[in-house]
C-alpha cells in the first residue's frame, strides 16, 4: 500500500538487506531531533549533512541520501554527542554501524576511508603493529590510482628524514594476531544479525 518513494520501509520491512539499517534505526528511535548532537560535533563544519539530519534520514529510511553523504566518515568518535544527548542515545556507536554498513555495501563515497582503514589493519594483522611503508603500499594498490603516491610524497619524505617510517618491504609477517582478528570478524557478524533494542 505504501508506494511512495521517499517514505520509509524502515520499520516495516523484514528484508535482510534492510535489517542492518533497521537495527541502526532502532538504536536512535527515541531521538527528538533537538540538535544537541550537531551542536556538539567538532567536525560538523566539514559535514555535508548535520548529524541531526543524518539521524532523521535514518529514521525515515532514506538510504540513498545517507550513503551519498560523508557525515559518518567524518565522525572522529569523540563521544561528545553521546555524552550530551538528552535521550541517552548511543550515537557514536550508531556512527560506527553506519561506517560498517557503508563498507559492506561498498559505498563509493566511503571507498577511500575503507581502503585506508583496511590497509592499516592489514599491516597490524600481519605484524602486530603498523609498518608505514607497507601500509601505504597496500593503500596505494587498493586505490588503483598511480598519481596518488605523489600526493603523499612530501609528507613521506619529511617523515623518512626523521626516521619515522619503517622502510621494510611488505611481507606476510607471522600473523600472530590473525586469531584475534578472526574472532572480531565473527563477533561483528553476530552483532549484525542480533536484533537488539
Amino acid at each position: 500500500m505504501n508506494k511512495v518513494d521517499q517514505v520509509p520501509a524502515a520499520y516495516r520491512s523484514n528484508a535482510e538487506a534492510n535489517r542492518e539499517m533497521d537495527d541502526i534505526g532502532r538504536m536512535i528511535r527515541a531521538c527528538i531531533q533537538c540538535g544537541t548532537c550537531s551542536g556538539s560535533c567538532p567536525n560538523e563544519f566539514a559535514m555535508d549533512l548535520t548529524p541531526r539530519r543524518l539521524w532523521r534520514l535514518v529514521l525515515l529510511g532514506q538510504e540513498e541520501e545517507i550513503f551519498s553523504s560523508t557525515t559518518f566518515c567524518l565522525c572522529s568518535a569523540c563521544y561528545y554527542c553521546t555524552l550530551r544527548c538528552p535521550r541517552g542515545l548511543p550515537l557514536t556507536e550508531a556512527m560506527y554501524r553506519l561506517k560498517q554498513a557503508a563498507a559492506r555495501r561498498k559505498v563509493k563515497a566511503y571507498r577511500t576511508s575503507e581502503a585506508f582503514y583496511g590497509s592499516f589493519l592489514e599491516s597490524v594483522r600481519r605484524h602486530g603493529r603498523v609498518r608505514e611503508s607497507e601500509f601505504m603500499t597496500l593503500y596505494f594498490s587498493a586505490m588503483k590510482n598511480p598519481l596518488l603516491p605523489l600526493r603523499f610524497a612530501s609528507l613521506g619524505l619529511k617523515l623518512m628524514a626523521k626516521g619515522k617510517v619503517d622502510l621494510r618491504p611488505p611481507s606476510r609477517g607471522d600473523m600472530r594476531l590473525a586469531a584475534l582478528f578472526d574472532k572480531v570478524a565473527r563477533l561483528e557478524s553476530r552483532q549484525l544479525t542480533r536484533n537488539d533494542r
Partner: protein
Amino acid sequence: MKTNSSKALVVGAGISGIRSALDLAESGHQVILIDRSLHMGGILSRLDYQFPTNHCGMCKMLPLVERDSGSQFCLRKGLFHDNIELRLGCELTSVSGKPGEFSVTLRQAPTQVDPDLCTGCGICSQVCPVEVPDDFNAGLATRKAIYLPLPHAVPNPYVIDPAACDHCGKCLQVCPTGAINLSDQQRGNFLILVVDDEPAVRDSLKEWLVDEGFAVDMAESGRQALEMLRDKDYGLMLTDIKMPGMDGVELLQRAKQVRPELTVVMMTAYATVETAVEAMKEGAFDYLMKPFDPARMIPMVVRIFEDRMAARDLEIGVGAIVLACGTDYFNPAESKNTLGYGICPHVITGIEFERLVSGTGPTAGRLVRPADGKPARKIAWLQCVGSRDLQTNTDYCSSVCCMYAVKEALLAGEKAGEDVETAIFYMDMRAFGLPFQRYLDEAAARPGMRFERTRVHSVTPHPESGSPVLTYMGTDGKLVDETFDLVVLSVGQRPARRTEQLAEMTGCKLNQWGFPATAPLDPVSTDRPGIFVSGSASGLKDISESVIFASAAAARAAVAMGGGDGSSETDDKETAYRDVSGRRPKIMAIVCTCGQRLSTDRDGPLVEKRLKTDPAVGEVVFVDRLCTAGGWQKAQEAAAAKDFNRILVGACHPYLFVKKIKALSAAIRLAPHLIDAVDLGLTGPDSSPPAPALPVARLQAGLARLKAAVVDRLPEVEVAATALVVGGGVAGMQAALTMAERGHRVTLVEKSDRLGGNLDWLQTTIDGQDLQDLCRTMVSEVESHPNIKTMTGSGIVGGYGQVGSFFTTIRGPDGEISTLEHGVAILATGGREATTTAYGYGSSDRIITQRRLEQALADTSIKPAGLETVVMIQCVDSRRKPRNYCSRVCCPTTIKHCLKIKQQNPETAVYVLYRDIMTPGFMETYFTAARRAGVIFIPYDPENRPEVEVADGEKGAESVKVNCTDPVSGLKLTIETDLLVLATGIVPRLPAELAATFGVDVDEHGFFRPADSKWRPVDALKEGVFACGICLGPRAAVESMATGQAAASRALRIISRRRISSGHPVAQVRYSLCALCERCIEACPYRARMLDTDRTKVVVNTAMCQGCGTCAAVCPNGASVINGYLRQQMFETIDALTQAFDEPLDLEAGKV
C-alpha cells in the same frame, strides 16, 4: 467539641497545604498544619508573579464566608484560622494506627529566639558578624546567622541558623527584650565521649567540640569507654571503627546494651566505609569520614544535640494525614551537562531569576546581572533542564517550566523595558491549560520575543566579555554561536527533599521517579488508607492543578475521618458576645510605649490629656512592648478590669494584633470588630524617638473609626445541607459520591438516560486502566448510595437563589416538574469531541477521529494487523482562532492509540503530524515509549499545515494521501495511508441558559469561567456554585475525578454548616435613601445583591458580600454603605490625620 477523629494533620504549609488545611478548617475540622521550614508559603513565598495575570493573587484562597474566623490579609505574610494550629520548624517523625485514629509524633525544632519576646527590631542582625548565602534569595544575596526566614512575614520573629552561628554572643548583648537564648549553658551539659586509639585524633576532636561549648571526655579503648558510659550520662559517643582489642562495631553493640538511648556516630577511614554503613544498621546514627571536616562534623553534632536536648516531641492523635510536601528543583550543577551553571556567573536558574525580579530580592526588583550588576538587555531561557532528560533519569515533563519561562520573559520586558531581547529555546512549548495558549500568543506578539525550537548544546563564557555564548543548531541546520547578557535555565522539578524518609516513615510507596505514588484511579490516595497526597507532592503540577489536588485531598481526608453527618462542630462553640447595642461608645485606649520611644513620663500625660478631649475615651493605659507576651498580658488584664464597650490598641503593625485581638475578644466577650489596632509609627531600627504628634493623630483616627463602629450582630444565612450536581459523568458522579459519603443528601441530574458521560465510550487510560470497569463501578455506587437521588433523563428548567439556599426547577423524564431546595450547586456538564470539516473529514471512511479510533480498536472493527500505514494529525482546528486553546487530552490519546497499534502490529508504519506534543508530567514517558516503538513524529507549522488528498476509489477504498514537510530532513513527504486519524479536540457542553440560572459566567469558548483560574479553579465568582470536569476545561478522566473531589471539598465548606455569615466589613442598604436604580446589583463582583421583587427592595446576601465597597462607590444616593467604613467614619478618620499637620501639637509646652 474537639475529637481526635475530626482532627487532620497537613504536612507542608505551601499553597497546597494551605488549601487543604483551609478547606478542612472551613468545613469544621481541626487541622494541624506543619512545615519543616521556618516560614509558610513554600516555593510560592519566593515567587512574586504568577501568570496569566503576572500578579500574585494568593489571597484569593482565603475564606470567603465566615471571614472573621481567619486572617484577612496578604496570605504571603501569614495565615491563621480558628481551626488551624500552625507549627513551623516542625517535622513528622512517626505515624501509627489507622484512619480515624492515627497517632503521630511531631518534632518541634528548638528556637533560640523566643518568638513571644522578639519584636522584630533587627538590631541583632545588624551586629551579627557572620554572613552566609541566603537560601531565600537562592544564594544571590547573603544574610546573617540571625535572620528573618521570610522578609515579609507577619509576625516576623528572627531565627538563628545553628549551622552558621559562631556563638559570639553579640546579639545576646544587644537584644532589647532578652529574646535570645544561645543554649550555650545547655551545651555544657551535653556530654560527648570521644573514643579513638590515636591521641592526635582525640585531641583535635576535643578541641573543636570544646570550642563549640560542649563537654567532652576521651577514651582510648572500647573497654575504657564502656566503663565511662556506666558512670556518666553521655548524650553522644564518637567512636573509631578500627581499634586494637574491642573494635568500634563491638563497642557500639555493647554500649547500646548499657545505654540504649545513646547516640553513636562512627568515625571511619575510607577503607572501612562499608563497615560504617553496616554499623548504621546496628543502630549507629551516622558516620564521619576521616580526615574530619569540621564544617560537616560540627553541624552534625549540633543537630544531634538539638534533637536530644532541645527538640520537643509531641504525640498527637489525628484522623487523617495529608501530605503536601511539594517539590524541589533540579540543580544543574549536578548534571553531566551543566550548561555553564556554576562556571559562567551569568547563567542562573529560573528560581534565581524570580528572586532577581522580586521586590524583596537581592536587587529590589531591578533586572541586572547578579554577578556584575550590569543591565541585562538580551536574555535566553533554556527549557527542559533536568526534565525530559533520560541522562538524568527524568523521563517526565516538569509541566510548569514552559509557562514560567514565558512569564519570566514577559516580566523581563516589564522590568527592563520593551526593547529587551528575549529568546526561549524549547522542544515542545507545553501550553496545555485552558488560558495558556492565549497567554503564549500574547507573549509571542511582544517585540523582541523569540522562540527557537532546538536544544542548546553548550554555554561557554565569551573569551573577552565573559558573557555566556550559546552554541546551538538552528532549525535550518546552521550552527549558531550567539552571545547573551544573561542565560536562565528553566530547571525542572524533583521530589521534595526527604520525601524518601517521609515515605518510609508513613509506609507510603513512591513511584519510579521518587514522588509519592497515588492510586491510578484515585488521584490523591496513597496505598495507606487515611493518608492522602495534596498538590504537587504527587508530581509536576502548576498552581491551579496543585490547588485542585489540594482540595481533592481535603475532601478525601474529610471522608476518611468519618463521623460526617452533615453538621459541623463549629456551630456549637459560638462565643456569646456582650450585647452593647444602644450604648454610647466608651473607649479604652491601650497605648504601647515601644521600649520608651514614647516616654511614659514625658509624653504619657500629654497623650492621655489630648485623647481624653474626646468624651468617648474613658481611660488611657500605657503598656511597654505590647508585641511581647508579657506586654499583651498587661493589656488584657487592664481591659478585663473595666467594662468598656470599645478598645483601641495603639502599637505597630495591625496584622500582628489580629490574632491577639481575637483572643482578647473571647476573654472579655466583646465582639472583635469593636477592638481595633492602629500603627503608631514608632518601630524601625532607627532609634531616635519620634515626635508624639504622629502617634496621637493616628490614635485619634482610630478613635474616629471605632466610635462609629456598628454594634449589631452579623446577619446570617440559613444553609440547606443538600447539594445539586448537574451532569452524571465521571466528575459529577465523583463530586456526588464524595459529598454523599460525608453524609449530605445529593441530587444528581443527568440529561441523558444513563450515567457515565464520556466514560460510556472511553476504554482505557494511557497507563492501561480499564475505564469501562470504572464506569460500571461508579454508576452502581452512585445508584445504590442512600444519600444520592439520581434523576436521569432530566434537565434544569430554571431556578434562583444564593449560597445556602438555591431553588431549582427540574423537569423529569416524563415532563414532570419538581422544585428542589439545595445549599450548593455543582456543574459537571462535561464536553464532547469537536466535529470538523478539515483534512477531508467526511469524504472518506478512511478519515476518522480519535474517538472513533478508540471505539474501533475496542470493538475490533479496525484491526492493526490489516494496517500498513496510519497517519494521525494533531491540533485539528485547535490552538488557533477561534478555538484558541489546547484540548490537552488529544496528544496522550494519540500516543495511547499509537502504542496500541504498534503493540498489536509492530509492522504498521505510524506517523504523527503535530505542533507541540503535550504530554505533561509522567505522560512524557509514553511519548518516549511511542518513539521507541518506532512511531515517527513530524512537526508542522500552523502556517503550513499538512494537506490531504482523497482520490476517488471504491467506497471505503479511496486513496488517502497526506502531504507534509519534515523540517529537519527538509524532505517533502507524501504518505499514502490506510487510515487518517484526526485529533479534533474538546468543546464544552455548558448551555448558556443553564449557566445563567446559576449566575455563572462562561468564557468565549463556552467553558465555565472560574473565579480565578489559578487560585480558585473550581469556584464560580458567585459563592455556592462550583464546577468540575470538562466544563472547567479539557482534562482526562482521572484529572476530572480530582476536580470532582475538589468541587465537593469546596461545597462541603458551606453545607457542613447550618448557618453562615460573611464577616466584617459587610454592605448594607439604607432603604430610605435607595432609589432602586440597581446600579449596585450590576456593580457587585460577587453577585451578592439582588432585587427582591416581592418587597421591591435591593437585598444583600451577607454571606456572599465580601465588603469590597464597589456598591458604595457607585450608589448615587449614599444608600449603599459598608459597615465599618461609613462616610462619617472615614471623614473623621481623615480629619484626625490631617489635623495633626494643620495644627501641630505643642506637647512640650503642654498646650493641648
